[in-house]
């Protein structure tokens, strides 16, 4: 099961939406996102009613899709529409009498982003949403590659998570040592056509193990998928803790993508665009085979293996 990446967009704390990740690389712990001008992308009448995460998803997805015919829309999100979840919780806790507004409830379900993308694009095809913590994007990507293989068609797939101020408020009050909490939205169009592709996704997997066992799981994965040791690992923590980079036996280069985008549950989608940019163009990175290695709390690991098309 493979798929080719044809287009991508990322909303991040870098100015990445129009000109990509590599040309805007800057390590920063300032988590403020640089949003595109949504009014230029989404019908203005709809924007007003959209929560932040929905805007981030719809904005990136519409630009990636362009005029392509797609077979499905698949989204991964660790926490989903947490802003509207927070709003609706406050709504019924604080408004103790009278009727409640359903607006936030409606927008709080995890599948709101994928549903809204379908609604705006008038797409009646396959539609799904994955919420497996730090592996949510890998979940979505496996389904997208399967769907693309089954239909021999194109699939819109993305990973996104939003940030709310409650994170900092609680982190401070509970004296939690969380750092570099991030947010972002990355979408991709993948299909089975090699022509003009930016990168090929050769294999995706997820494993639950301890950090010391990752090297063993990586070797198993490479053997099973008949892949060579990558020449670059793009590594990221998808939870804002102090999870360690696993020791990989063979000497290979490692770049920490979470240092650029922050830690959030779907930041491996940022990692995948980073890899696709390296594989598709000129950059100071010299790599033909890249492993995006995602570490969630030293217990779940995601592998996305990409090569030049």
């Amino acid at each position: 099961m493979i798929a080719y990446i044809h287009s991508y967009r990322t909303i991040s704390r870098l100015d990445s939406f129009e000109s990509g990740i590599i040309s805007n690389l800057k390590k920063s712990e300032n988590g403020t996102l640089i949003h595109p001008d949504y009014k230029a992308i989404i019908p203005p009448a709809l924007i007003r009613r959209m929560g932040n995460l929905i805007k981030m998803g719809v904005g990136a997805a519409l630009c990636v899709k362009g005029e392509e015919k797609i077979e499905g829309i698949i989204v991964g999100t660790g926490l989903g529409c947490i802003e509207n979840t927070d709003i609706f919780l406050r709504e019924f806790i604080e408004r103790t009498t009278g009727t409640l507004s359903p607006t936030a409830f409606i927008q709080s379900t995890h599948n709101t982003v994928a549903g809204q993308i379908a609604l705006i694009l008038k797409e009646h095809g396959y539609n799904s949403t994955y919420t497996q913590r730090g592996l949510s994007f890998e979940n979505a990507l496996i389904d997208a590659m399967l769907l693309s293989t089954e239909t021999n068609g194109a699939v819109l797939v993305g990973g996104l998570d939003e940030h709310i101020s409650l994170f900092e408020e609680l982190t401070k009050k509970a004296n939690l040592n969380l750092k570099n909490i991030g947010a972002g939205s990355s979408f991709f169009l993948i299909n089975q056509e090699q022509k003009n592709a930016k990168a090929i996704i050769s294999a995706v997997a997820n494993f639950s193990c301890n950090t010391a066992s990752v090297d063993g799981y990586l070797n198993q994965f490479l053997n099973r998928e008949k892949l060579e040791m990558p020449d670059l690992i793009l590594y990221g923590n998808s939870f804002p803790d102090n999870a360690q980079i696993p020791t990989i036996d063979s000497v290979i280069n490692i770049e920490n993508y979470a240092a650029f985008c922050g830690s959030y549950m779907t930041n491996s989608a940022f990692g995948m665009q980073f890899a696709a940019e390296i594989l598709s163009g000129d950059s100071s990175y010299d790599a033909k085979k890249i492993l995006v290695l995602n570490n969630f709390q030293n217990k779940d690991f995601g592998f996305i293996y990409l090569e030049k098309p």
Partner: protein
Amino acid sequence: MKVVVTGIGTISAAGNNVAESLLSLKTSQSTIGLIENIKHIRKPFLGGQVKKSNQQFKAELGINDNEIIPRSTLLSLTAAKEAWADQPLNTEIRTGIISATSIGGMELSEQFYFNYLQTGSMQSIQNLAVHDNGAGTDILARYFNIDSFKFTISTACSSAANAILLGARLIKGNVLDRVLVGGGDAISNFTLNGFDSLMIYDGEFCKPFDDERKGLNLGEGAGFLVLENEHSLSFTKKNILAEIKGWANANDSFHQTASSPDGKGATLAIKKALQQAQISAQLIDYVNAHGTATPNNDLSESVALKNVFGETIPPFSSTKAFTGHTLAAAGGIEAVFSVLALRENILLPNLNFKTPMKETGLIPITKPETKKLNYVLSNSFGFGGNSTSLIFAS
């Protein structure tokens, strides 16, 4: 490559396991009543509850009572354990887990929020560590020692149906040999107040497909299945309970919460599932409908049934009056019910039905009936336009 069902497990207001659920269905016994034991409940609600405390669940599952585990996960563990039974661990069998939920640990997050917003107390902050949907799947995966291909799906009320669909596709696509699939949801203030704010929560017993239907009653529960291919069967030697023959996922693409009047998404899902199964519509012997008893869903689904089956609509019913609407779990519980219908050759009753709806005049099965069944269709539709249909074969 055939995808077969070799294990089923369920828990809901209809029963604490498969045998109890079957008995309720066969005798038309519903336990839906006033919802109890939900802290901070805003007003009286009718719903389908499992009469077991979290402590009881933990004791039965051999889990330390101090562990913070959402009720949705305890329900899922219970149903999954029944389905998984004595499945062997074997590295020759590529095994995965796909679990669905819509509220995850919401009932615990709510308790933190109530404390925090009302008194500033951080006492139950640990509850938030299991807020997200994936937290429960992590607990399930550890419980069953499944260390890769771990998925959580959240497509509102079609979630567990999509977990089953993904499991079937991963086996068909030769990615996995065996997979534990299903979903679970508990009752929370979040969902009670949410559906109430949308004015689709019936103050009386829900009446699926009835002209006078006012809305749903929520329920809690879980439903899980074990799916295997022949390679896996050669090791596990399990009995085949049913075959999963067809599956399809489509989007209604009409409105964030409402279903289209022409039943577009539902029609597409059913038609594509029939195509996938390579059988004609006339071969469907029974439809376990989504039938939430909301005015909107039941009309849209009825129109879809007419679109697909024309004037000869197969016997159909909604079992929501037994379970309440269990949201993400519904597709899993109803898949188990569909397999039971096939195994027992029985049409399951739709309780509380009196008057056919004016628009379509459709009449569901209202009493359990014996009939030889070969193919059963199970529908699950949800917010976000998500529409999934599954076809099980004897």
